[in-house]
C-alpha cells in the first residue's frame, strides 16, 4: 500500500467512537467522522475543542481511551512505512536548536529509509533552501512552520494531516499553503487540516468536520455546512408602514424583532429568504427605505454553533 502512490482505500481516514480522558477531563468524546481522499477536509473547532488531541491519537502519539482512528484501515503504528503513507505537521513538533533544518530532515530520511536528497527536494518545495544550512534555533516562527511542512512532505505521502498550519505564516504564506493543499487534493491525496478559524478554511476545504468540547457538531460538504450556518442570517428592513409589514411577515412564518435605531423603526427578520421579505415589503410596507441582509458572518455563525466558545480574531 505504501509507496505506490495515492489510492482511495489507503487514503481514507476513519475515526470511530474516539475518546480521550485525562484524569476526569474528557478531551475527546465519542468522536466519529470520515475523511475522504481527493478532498481537502477542514477540521474545525475553538481552541481546546480537542482537535490536536484527535490528530495525535490518529498519529499514534497519544493512546485513545476508547475507539479507533485509522488510515486506510490501519492504525498509524501499524503502517509499514509511515512517512510514505502519512505526512503530519504538528504544532508541538520541534527540532534540535543546534541542528540545521536540512540535517533535521536528513535524520528523518534515514529513519524512514528515504534517500537523503529528499530533504533538499522538500526544502526547495517549501522555499526554505536559502536557510537549509542554518541552525533551527535561528529560525523564525514562519520558517519553523515551513520546515514542519517540509517534514510532512518528505515521504511524498498519500495523506496529509496538518494541525493549524497557518499559525505563524504571513498572508502570502497562507495563500501559498492553500494552493499547495488544493493541489495535493487534486492529485488524489487526502488532506485533513485543522483550524480554529472558519474563515481560514472556508475557501479551501471541500468538507468540514466541526467539533466542540470533544464532540462532533457538524460534518459534511463545506457548502452545505456553511449554508446551514447562514440560515440563521437576518434581513433588516425599514418601511413607512411598519405595523402592516410586521403582521404580514409574522403570518408568513418569519420571526420579527423591532428596534428603534435613530428614531426610526427597523424590523429584523429571520426565517425568511431575502427575496420573500422584499416582495412582502413591496406589497404591505408602503414606501421602502431600506432592505439589507444583515452581515452575520460565518465567524458569528460558527461562534453560535460552538456555543459561543470560538475565538474571534
Amino acid at each position, binding site marked *: 500500500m505504501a509507496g505506490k502512490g495515492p489510492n482511495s482505500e489507503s487514503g481514507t481516514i476513519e475515526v470511530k467512537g474516539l475518546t480521550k480522558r485525562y484524569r476526569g477531563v474528557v478531551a475527546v468524546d465519542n468522536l466519529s467522522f470520515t475523511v475522504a481522499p481527493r478532498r481537502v477536509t477542514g477540521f474545525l473547532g475553538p481552541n481546546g475543542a480537542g482537535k490536536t488531541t484527535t490528530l495525535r491519537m490518529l*498519529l499514534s502519539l497519544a493512546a485513545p481511551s476508547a475507539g479507533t482512528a485509522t488510515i486506510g484501515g490501519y492504525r498509524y503504528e501499524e*503502517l509499514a512505512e509511515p512517512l510514505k503513507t502519512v505526512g503530519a505537521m504538528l504544532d508541538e513538533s520541534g527540532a*534540535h536548536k543546534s541542528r540545521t533544518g536540512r540535517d533535521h530532515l536528513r535524520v528523518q530520511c534515514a*529513519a524512514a529509509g528515504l534517500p537523503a536528497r529528499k530533504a533538499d527536494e522538500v526544502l526547495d518545495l517549501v522555499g526554505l533552501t536559502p536557510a537549509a544550512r542554518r541552525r533551527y534555533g535561528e529560525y523564525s516562527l514562519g520558517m519553523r512552520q515551513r520546515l514542519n511542512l517540509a517534514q510532512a512532505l518528505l515521504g511524498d505521502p498519500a495523506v496529509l494531516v496538518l494541525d493549524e498550519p497557518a499559525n505563524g505564516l504571513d498572508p502570502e504564506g497562507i495563500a501559498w499553503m492553500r494552493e499547495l493543499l488544493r493541489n495535493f487534493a487534486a492529485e488524489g491525496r487526502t488532506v485533513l487540516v485543522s483550524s480554529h478559524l472558519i474563515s481560514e478554511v472556508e475557501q479551501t476545504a471541500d468538507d468540514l468536520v466541526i467539533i466542540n468540547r470533544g464532540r462532533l457538531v457538524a460534518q459534511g460538504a463545506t457548502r452545505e455546512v456553511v449554508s446551514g450556518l447562514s440560515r440563521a442570517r437576518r434581513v433588516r428592513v425599514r418601511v413607512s408602514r411598519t405595523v402592516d409589514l410586521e403582521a404580514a411577515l409574522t403570518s408568513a412564518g418569519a420571526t420579527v424583532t423591532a428596534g428603534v435605531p435613530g428614531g426610526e423603526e427597523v424590523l429584523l427578520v429571520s426565517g425568511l429568504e431575502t427575496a420573500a421579505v422584499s416582495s412582502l415589503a413591496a406589497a404591505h410596507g408602503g414606501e421602502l427605505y431600506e432592505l439589507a441582509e444583515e452581515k452575520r458572518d460565518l465567524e458569528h455563525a460558527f461562534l453560535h454553533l460552538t456555543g459561543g466558545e470560538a475565538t474571534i480574531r
Partner: protein
Amino acid sequence: MTGLIGSELLKLRTVRTWWTVGAAMAGTTLLMASWYCWQATNFMQPFEDYLAGAILTPRQDMSAEQIATMHRLWETQGDVGHIAATIYTSGQAVGLLLAGVLAVLLVTDEYQHRTLTATFLATPRRGRVIAAKLAVVVIASAGLWLVSTVVDLVVGTVFLTSRDVGLQLGSPDVVSAVLLNLAAYVVWGVFGFGLGVLIRNQVIATVTATALYFLTSVVVAFAFRAIHELVIEEDWVLKVQVIIPGVASQIMTTPGELFAGAPAQWTGAVVLVAYGLTAGLVGTVLLRRRDVV
C-alpha cells in the same frame, strides 16, 4: 533497524554536543597522560635517586623495613608494562563520566528539544527507537574511548621512545588494560543511557549521573564499615558496597582488590550494566505507554 541506527548516529553527528564532548575528551586525556608521564619519570630512575627524590628523611634514618616498602613500590610502579598500561588508559577518570553524560544527553535531547514527535512519526514503534539509541550509545562510548586512546598512544609513543623502553604494545597486560578501558567506557555509556531513559529530564539525569560517579568508595566505605563493625559482622557486608555505582566503577577499573575483601573486577561491570539495562527497560515500558507531549 540499520536505517534507524544510521538516523540516531546522524543525530549525534549533527549537533555540537558530540564535538564538544569529543574535544573535552581529547584535551583532558592529553593533560592527564602528560601529567602521568612526568610522574612516571620518578619511578624510572635508579632506586637510590628515586628514594632521594621521594623522601625527605635522610637515608641513614630510615629502617630497613621502610626501605623495603619503598623498593616494592618503586618496582611495581616503575615496571614498564605498568607505566605503558597507565599511559594508554589515561583520561579514564574523566572519560567514563563523559561517556555516561554523553549517553544521558543523547537520550534526553529528544525531550529537551521536543523532537520525540518527529522521531515517533518516522518510527512509531518506540521500543525500536530506544534500541537504536542503545546501539548508538555503545558506538559513541567506544568513540570516546578511541579519541582518548589515540591521544594516549601519541603521548605514550613520544614518552616511551624518549626513554628508550619500547612501546610495550605486544604485552598482554597492556592490551588487556586497553580493552578493559574500552569495556569501562561502554559500561558507563549503558549506565547513562538507562538513567536518561528513566529520568527524561536532561538536567536531573546529568546531575544524577555525575553524583553517582563521584559517590565512590571514599565516600561510602565509612558507612559500610560502620555497618560491618556495629550491626552485621559478616564479610559480605563489605562486598555489598559494589551495589553503589561509583564503587562498582572503581572495582571494575582497579586491577586487584580495591579494598580488602572486595569482589572481583567483573562484578563491578555487571552491576553497572544491570543498572543501565534495568533502568532503560523500565523507562522504555513507561515510554511506550505514555502520550508524547
